[in-house]
């Protein structure tokens, strides 16, 4: 299940959906990303996340399908929020079930790495001094390269 939405999500609810009708999957790994202050001077109080509707969903589905081909997975859930977000709000959720914890961990990390690298999201930070588009992050590119 892939969802790009403005609304917040609830980890407990998403987890319940993941473990419903399990088929022997004993490992559940979840990742939640929170809006954090990327700058050193603590001046960011929120961000606006723009995306390319249609392409985002396609890219996220591609990433999830790649993970499913690579590891023996049960269910995969991905929720990404867009629009206006304030500091410490939830921004992304990835949940993966698998028979093996190693596969669940790897696949969840793989999805996050490619999501950061490939998905058409553009981040604008709201700071005390005004709005500023976030620059391309070399670290995220490196994280995806290792797979």
């Amino acid at each position, binding site marked *: 299940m892939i969802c790009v939405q403005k609304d917040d999500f609830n980890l407990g609810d998403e987890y319940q959906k993941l473990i419903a009708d399990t088929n022997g999957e004993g490992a559940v790994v979840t990742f939640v990303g929170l809006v954090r202050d990327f700058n050193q001077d603590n001046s960011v109080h929120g961000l606006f996340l723009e995306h390319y509707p249609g392409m985002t969903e396609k890219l996220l589905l591609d990433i999830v399908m790649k993970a499913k081909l690579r590891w023996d997975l049960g269910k995969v859930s991905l929720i990404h929020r867009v629009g206006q977000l304030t500091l410490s709000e939830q921004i*992304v959720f990835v949940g993966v079930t698998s028979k093996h914890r190693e596969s669940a961990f790897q696949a969840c990390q793989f999805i996050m790495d490619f999501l950061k*690298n490939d998905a058409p999201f553009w*981040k604008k930070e709201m700071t005390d001094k005004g709005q500023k588009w976030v620059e391309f992050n070399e670290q995220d590119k490196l994280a995806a390269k290792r797979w």
Partner: protein
Amino acid sequence: MVKVLFFGQLKELLDCNETSVDIAEPATVDDIKNELKLRSERWANLLSNGPVLVAINHSMSMSSDQVNNGDEVAFFPPVTGG
């Protein structure tokens, strides 16, 4: 006719999120870009400088890739993650 979309900072700087371009097939992404650059000096600068990525029908593409009538072409800066 090709539908053209802009995203991120590029959209803001161009002050335009959607437009369209008439093309004579066969045409490439570069042909569309050149057509757009004719609109103003500002557009020419913004579409020439800095890395501008392109997607045709939701797939990442290159400048030399072919574009057909009815396609959706999007220009945007490097993505900055979720």
